[in-house]
């Protein structure tokens, strides 16, 4: 059985080359040759179209970004709001995965959405990519920064910067025109979106991770047609690829971009200790903000308790993954701690 699978992103993005390109081979291995996948590119389904594509079974396994659909997926949106807590991509991806798999209301919202969840990945810790160097909180005042989400906007506003919502397509032009002075983003964006031609400075501040992802989202229509063994094979495949993707997105790509940036003469600014401290303090306080806004915004009455659970899982996985760096080993820990405990006869029903 060949599943129709879609990364939703263009080839340069790691979700295309590192999640989906290897999927057919891995799936064949894990299923003993009974399952495979056909990849549909972004010309068929973009990230914004993934919801309808999965619900209509145009796509059977797809890379979905829940923050495109916050009204449908409140729990994932809440986890996304906690971006500023992110300090390690593999830890965040694992915490996100455990949060979603063992949570009844999460599973219920996924069911209503018509999909089954098989794990998350995460970006590296975001940094500031700017035209002028940012060292102190004073340098941030009045700076117009592209923000990819609410938490980054809250951080920017707290320090007197002006967050701007600019689409990915417009980012390059907006920065070259001076409509924005920089971007709160992964260092990898220097290469992925060619900001290397415009930015002059990178400030490595712990601005958090983008971990509200659902790497392999299975259409419920397809899931219902699968046997328990097929479901297990697909879940094992997904679990092998998730840490590899996070390794690529959260580690290798930023490292390559940093190298290229240094060659291009971009300066890496060490932030002032006061700014670093203020940022850490803001991230800590932001957890409470998230608990409060999520009650109203996402209709989650017990949002503060959910924030606490997520926070606990981040600590748990920081411990479990301490010293584990090889993505293959990380996949083994995830398999044992999460997926081996799942009953695939009833999961996703």
């Amino acid at each position, binding site marked *: 059985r060949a599943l129709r699978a879609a990364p939703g992103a263009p080839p340069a993005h790691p979700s295309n080359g590192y999640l989906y390109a290897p999927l057919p081979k891995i799936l064949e291995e894990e299923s003993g040759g009974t399952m495979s996948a056909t990849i549909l590119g972004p010309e068929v389904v973009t990230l914004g179209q993934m919801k*309808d594509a999965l619900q209509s079974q145009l796509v059977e396994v797809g890379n979905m970004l829940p*923050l495109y*659909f*916050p*009204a*449908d997926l409140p729990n994932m949106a809440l986890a996304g709001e906690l971006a500023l807590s992110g300090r390690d991509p593999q830890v965040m991806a694992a915490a996100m995965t455990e949060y979603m798999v063992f949570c009844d209301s999460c599973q219920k919202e996924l069911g209503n959405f018509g999909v089954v969840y098989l794990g998350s990945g995460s970006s590296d810790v975001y940094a500031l990519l700017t035209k002028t160097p940012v060292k102190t909180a004073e340098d941030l005042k*009045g700076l*117009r920064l592209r*923000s990819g*989400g*609410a938490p980054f*906007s*809250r951080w920017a*506003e707290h320090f007197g910067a*002006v*967050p*701007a*919502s*600019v*689409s990915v397509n417009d980012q390059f032009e907006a920065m070259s025109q001076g*409509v924005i002075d920089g971007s709160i983003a992964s260092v990898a964006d220097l290469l992925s979106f060619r900001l290397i031609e415009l930015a002059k400075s990178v400030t490595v501040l712990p601005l958090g991770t983008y971990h509200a992802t659902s790497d392999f989202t299975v259409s419920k229509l397809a899931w219902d047609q699968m046997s328990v063994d097929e479901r297990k094979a697909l879940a094992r495949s997904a679990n092998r690829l998730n840490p590899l993707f996070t390794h690529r997105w959260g580690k290798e790509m930023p490292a390559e971009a940093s190298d290229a940036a240094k060659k291009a003469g971009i300066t890496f600014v060490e932030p002032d200790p006061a700014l670093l401290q203020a940022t850490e303090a803001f991230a800590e306080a932001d957890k409470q903000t998230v608990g409060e806004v999520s009650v109203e*915004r996402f209709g989650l009455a017990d949002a503060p308790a959910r924030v606490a659970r997520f926070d606990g899982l981040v600590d748990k996985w920081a411990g479990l993954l301490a010293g584990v760096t090889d993505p293959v080993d990380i996949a083994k820990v995830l398999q044992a701690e999460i997926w081996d405990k799942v009953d695939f006869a009833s999961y996703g029903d």
Partner: protein
Amino acid sequence: MPIQIGFADRVFRLIALLASIGIIAMMIHVCADVIWRTVSGRPLPATVEIVSRYYMVFVAFLPLAWVEQRRAMISVEIAEGFMTTPVRVFSDIAVALFSCAVYAVMTWTTWEMALKNYATGTFVMALNQQVPVWPSYFLPPFGFGLAAFATALRGVDIIRGAFRGQPATGGTE
């Protein structure tokens, strides 16, 4: 021209004119954003989201029926010169029916989608602000539905004209 078609024509026109509010609003909103950003250093909140999710959807779907009524839908008329009058009338009827069928399917599917988005109360996040967008999902089925109606009327009009032995007038230009 039969009375009901004249009436429908006026309705289509009126609804299309509603879309011109979308155009004017888009222009003013984008310019206000540019000016405000330059003067105060801060952009107007949610400009991108409102322009793309509301004004653009207004402009694209509301005028459809009126464009159909004016027969301003773009087609390639390479074969037109080779057609005799009866063939042309037959092809006009076929085109009207085909168009009506396509619009009907579009109306139905986009309507289902609008209901789904209404049920979830779909919104997007513009920075730290919530912008509800579910209402704009009702514009495509509305526009397609009217267009289906317009093409159906046109089909009826042509058939009636053919029986009377006169070429149909189509719409008013």
